């Protein structure tokens, strides 16, 4: 049943991926190896977490341009708290728990402010989140002294690495903790979106805010909650990234919100009417992941990558929109 609707609504992203894979395969034989595919999945797990948050926000007909800044800031606050605790004698484990908690709290707080500006202050989402992006970006630079904060905490780093670093068995290099975290988060959000009233409220606010209100949904509160949730998801991404890099960089997340939003749109989530869902977002993340990986494997100089990536993404979005409009028209 769900499969049937999904297939019918298959976003153009699926075709874009296939197309790109063919192109890249032609450019390099290394492309379709298992190692490479696993690579793509591992590299983009963190983006998936961020993109899931972006999807929720888009479903409510909003947008969160501060996601990248929140990612960065959460990593920074987490790292500072951890380092602070470790240097004053706490065990690695305790420090990590505290650090992660603070990181998540940071995300929740940023999301709460953004959501408040939008739901209560009635600010247009793009400007509220743009302003918060500036605020968050600055705070990251200040708290990290414009550089990176290194974290030497093996317990923490475990959550950012592939399993072969700690479990020395064959095939362990194909399993990574960030991927598990991303999968767990994805599952959790899937449950929230499809199995809880909150999830249905998100879609109803985006689909017909007036109708939702008349049906008794507390639109103001739940709209606010969407942004808090997105903030927490950005924080999870930031903390996991810090674990992987074993450092919290003060500008690492800049621009990630663009990839996240693009992934959501490419996955079939529309910026209006509450159309779409997180299942497609996986495809959207894959488009971006395949593109970036393909450019790498094909030997395109890293200098060209941001420009080409941006262009590919915009073209893919245009294609997806035109395609979905065509799909609606012939229905």
């Amino acid at each position: 049943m769900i499969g049937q609707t999904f297939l019918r609504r298959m976003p153009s992203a699926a075709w874009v991926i296939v197309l790109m894979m063919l192109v890249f395969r032609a450019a390099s034989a290394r492309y379709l190896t298992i190692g490479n595919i696993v690579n793509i999945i591992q590299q983009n797990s963190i983006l998936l977490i961020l993109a899931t948050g972006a999807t929720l926000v888009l479903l409510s007909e909003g947008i969160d341009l501060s996601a990248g800044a929140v990612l960065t800031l959460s990593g920074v606050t987490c790292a500072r708290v951890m380092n602070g605790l470790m240097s004053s004698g706490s065990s690695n484990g305790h420090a990590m728990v505290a650090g992660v908690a603070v990181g998540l709290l940071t995300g929740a707080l940023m999301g709460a402010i953004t959501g408040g500006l939008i739901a209560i202050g009635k600010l247009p989402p793009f400007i509220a989140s743009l302003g918060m992006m500036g605020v968050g970006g600055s705070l990251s630079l200040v708290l990290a002294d414009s550089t990176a904060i290194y974290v030497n905490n093996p317990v923490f780093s475990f959550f950012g690495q592939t399993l072969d670093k700690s479990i020395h068995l064959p095939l362990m290099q194909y399993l990574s903790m960030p991927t598990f975290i991303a999968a767990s988060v994805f599952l959790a959000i899937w449950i929230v979106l499809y199995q809880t009233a909150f999830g249905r409220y998100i879609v109803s606010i985006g689909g017909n805010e007036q109708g939702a209100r008349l049906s008794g949904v507390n639109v103001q509160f739940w709209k606010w909650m969407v942004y808090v949730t997105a903030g927490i998801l950005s924080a999870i991404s930031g903390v996991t990234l810090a674990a992987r890099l074993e450092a919290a960089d003060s500008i690492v997340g800049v621009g990630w919100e663009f990839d996240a939003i693009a992934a959501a749109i490419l996955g079939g989530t529309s910026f209006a009417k509450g159309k779409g869902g997180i299942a497609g977002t996986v495809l959207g993340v894959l488009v971006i992941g395949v593109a970036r990986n393909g450019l790498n494997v094909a030997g395109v100089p890293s200098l060209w990558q941001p420009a080409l990536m941006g262009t590919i993404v915009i073209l893919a979005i245009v294609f997806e929109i035109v395609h979905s409009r065509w799909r609606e028209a012939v229905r």
Partner: protein
Amino acid sequence: MSVAKLSTKRFAAARLLVLIAVGIAMAVLTRSDEYGFVFLNANNLLNIVRNASILIIIAVGQTITLTAKDVDLSVGSVLSLTSVLAAIMLKNYGFSVPTAILAALLAGAFLGLINGLLITYVGLPPFIATYGMLWVLFGFAYLILRGNVIYGFPPAFRIIGNGRLFGIPMPIVVMLVVFAVSYFVLYYTTLGRRFFATGANIEMARMSGVNVGRIVVIAYVISGFLAALAGLVLIAYTNGSEARIGDNYLLPVLAVVVMGGTSLAGGQGNLLGTLVAALIMAMIHNGMNILAVPAIWKSFVVGLLVITAVLADQGLRQKA
């Protein structure tokens, strides 16, 4: 001018008051025992106006797109990319100064055209379309210059940045010309009138015979062009160009435009307000510089200003 209704006049007066108040505040805050009121130093004041000029040129473009439709978030990247283009044309390829300038301006207009087409024909919401362009263009600017800085431009080019006309620094001259022309176009020509109509009520404009698609595209072309122009003046003045040069302009431009009374909802462009607000912003920036406030706090302040300005604007509109 879209009608001087009483409250607009009241806000304009309020803005001037704020300008003076901020001026006094900055002067007092930055007073040092050694040098007295450094803020009020003639050179410093000139600096303020000169820095404001770059901002104003971009903000004029933003005012126009907001009048006709909505925001243009790509201005910072357009500035970066077009000025990088001009820079390498001048330094690395030895093109003549007029050619480099023309190329940059045309590139800006072209990028604005892409924005306009994405919005009117593909139907992307303006904030998504221009935000996407922001990143794409950054990618290209990075591609061309990566982390390098190009410096040392031919004097014939530098003159638009550090030359003077009748004793007035060129950036200010360019700004005055841009402002005067834009003011004229927006308030005294049929094109400007169509911008207002399209932004005020696009459905009514269409049903009154206005070609709304074309009008929106033109507005974004102008914004791109002006961002490029601002970039040229900027690199001529600083004598250097790098890929991220335009990054710090987006938030200030937005703050300035909203503080100046231009509505985010469209149809209410206030050029004079933008001018005054830009001066206020430049004064605050200048004050922060004198007080040696670390750069990283600056974008915090600007971010806060944007939010406050929009909240205030929203609040005042509810009451009106």
